[in-house]
């Protein structure tokens, strides 16, 4: 029954009838698994206690990204990319890679998808360059460049909690996989879009110069330092994110560049509730035999081969049902394998979704059925690009992880 409920919750989240928030189905489903005893009360409480700090951390990062956008950080990034490329689409791709990788790592993939993508399109088209390679780079890097820090992706925050390692250790182990994934993407993009990039950029409009918001950059820098120093002190790094969001939030409220309502809205409460409820439902599914059923399919141990196998399973599952439920299902199963196993799952669920541009086959099928506007996108081209980047990135990123584990230890 829990499986049926999980499928219903995911189907609702994909379909979103009448535009209702995803939590509308997830919360009742969580209550049903609780009421029917599919999950014991202590287990449910433990799951919520485990997820609540993760969700609060995520909320702080979402607010931080919104405040950075309000202060013009993304327009400044557009102006920087235009300056760096001096009219060459190839150099523009390089600066898009740099900016998108940095923004995804620090402000999460949501910031890259929602806030950076339109700025990149505007920058490319004002320069007169073909926008496709640059916009596709944003959508790909939102996934593959979200490996570096626990804050870069909700999946990372979940794995970070499950692995129980420090913020700096996480970043240290994931630095090589992150660089490997970005390098593969860059090499493939340069070849795949060679003719678009060679077409030049002609007679665009000047990109208006925007000064970088120094105060925001300083606060972001201090927040990053905060992430690094809180862990060894035994303080939850989420406090650093709260601190950063608080400083920028109070400043914006005092200067009346935002309202309490807008700030509250940027935390996406329904999304946070959805994550909590989804966590409870998934836990019920895992408790009720999924771990036995799937357990033997999951490679164990921390040999290179086992890590590759884990990443592959995670990538496949993420492509079937979206990476958020995939990571919730796989983490309890992989946790016994130690840090290496958890991070290998993370590499799979983060890089995998680039195969299907809507995150999973389930979403893709539904959007095809609906004939939603984005299905007119060139599916064949996007999938070819994914097939060129995903398998190689997965292998090289896992190799990077394995090297990190060997050098600095799990």
């Amino acid at each position, binding site marked *: 029954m829990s499986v049926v409920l999980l499928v219903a919750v*995911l189907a609702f*989240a*994909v379909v*979103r009838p009448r535009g209702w*928030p*995803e939590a509308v189905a997830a919360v009742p489903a969580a209550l049903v698994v609780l009421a029917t005893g599919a999950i014991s009360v202590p287990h449910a409480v433990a799951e919520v206690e485990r997820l609540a700090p993760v969700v609060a951390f995520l909320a702080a990062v979402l607010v931080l990204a919104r405040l950075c956008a309000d202060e013009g950080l993304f327009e400044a990034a557009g102006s920087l990319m235009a300056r760096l490329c001096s009219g060459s*689409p190839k150099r523009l791709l390089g600066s898009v890679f740099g900016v998108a990788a940095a923004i995804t790592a620090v402000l999460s993939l*949501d910031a890259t*998808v*929602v*806030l950076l*993508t*339109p700025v990149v*399109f*505007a920058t490319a*088209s*004002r320069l*007169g*360059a*073909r*926008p*496709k390679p640059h*916009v*596709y780079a*944003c*959508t790909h890097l939102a*996934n593959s460049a979200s490996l570096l820090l626990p804050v870069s992706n909700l999946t990372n925050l979940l794995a970070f909690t499950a692995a129980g390692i420090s913020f700096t250790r996480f970043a240290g182990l994931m630095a090589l996989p992150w660089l490997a994934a970005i390098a593969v993407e860059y090499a493939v993009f340069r070849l795949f879009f*060679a*003719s*678009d990039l*060679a*077409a*030049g*950029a*002609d*007679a665009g*409009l000047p990109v208006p110069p925007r000064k970088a918001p120094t105060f925001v950059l300083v606060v972001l820098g201090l927040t990053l330092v905060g992430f690094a120093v809180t862990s060894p002190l035994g303080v939850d790094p989420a406090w650093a994110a709260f601190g950063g969001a608080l400083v920028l939030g109070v400043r914006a409220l005092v200067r009346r560049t935002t309202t309490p309502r807008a700030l509250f809205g940027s935390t*996406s409460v*329904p*999304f946070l509730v*959805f994550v909590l409820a*989804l966590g409870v439902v998934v836990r019920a599914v895992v408790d009720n035999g999924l771990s036995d059923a799937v357990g033997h399919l999951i490679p164990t141990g921390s040999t290179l081969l086992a890590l590759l196998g884990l990443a592959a399973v995670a990538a496949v599952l993420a492509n079937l049902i*979206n*990476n*958020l*439920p995939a990571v919730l299902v796989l983490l309890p199963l992989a946790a016994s394998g130690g840090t290496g196993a958890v991070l290998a799952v993370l590499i799979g669920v983060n890089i995998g*979704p680039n195969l299907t*541009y*809507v*995150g*999973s086959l389930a*979403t893709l099928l539904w*959007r095809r059925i609906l004939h*939603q*506007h*984005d299905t*007119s*996108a*060139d599916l064949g081209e*996007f999938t070819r690009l994914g097939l060129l980047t995903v398998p190689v990135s997965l292998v090289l990123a896992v190799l990077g992880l394995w090297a990190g584990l060997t050098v600095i230890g799990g």
Partner: protein
Amino acid sequence: MDVVVWIVEGTWRACAHAARTFAPPSSRIVLLHVTAPDVPGAAHGAFAGLLGRGHPERDPGHQVEELAEVAAQHLLAVAAAELDLPATAVNRHGRPEEEVIAAAEGAGLLIIARDGDRTRLGPKSLGHATRFVVDHAPCPVLLVWPEQAPGIASIPPPPR
């Protein structure tokens, strides 16, 4: 007769110049730009991949669609200024190669630019879309180099 000039980012200027040189004085010139749905589609898709985020109004694809419309109108305006002859500007939506073929139906001439590897003469100097248009065009095609064509020395020697 109608002369259709395909205006594409990066290579449009050569096509505008070719139209000035080769369009007969009495012809009606159509500046054609095609806005493909794939780029906004990728932005829509990336947002759909963020499961649970709700807020369809935050979908960056909508913003990209609007920006694409503005960019197309701007490019057509710049091309019209460069052409400096009476012309009609048309922006179509769809797969570029198919829209260009449809727009060229009944035209007396279609002017397009090479958009592949432009460092040497050869088949790779045509990108995918341009290749399709050359292969399927329902009218005479004028295929121009966006800049000075490479010398014939760039053709590799025949295999022995």
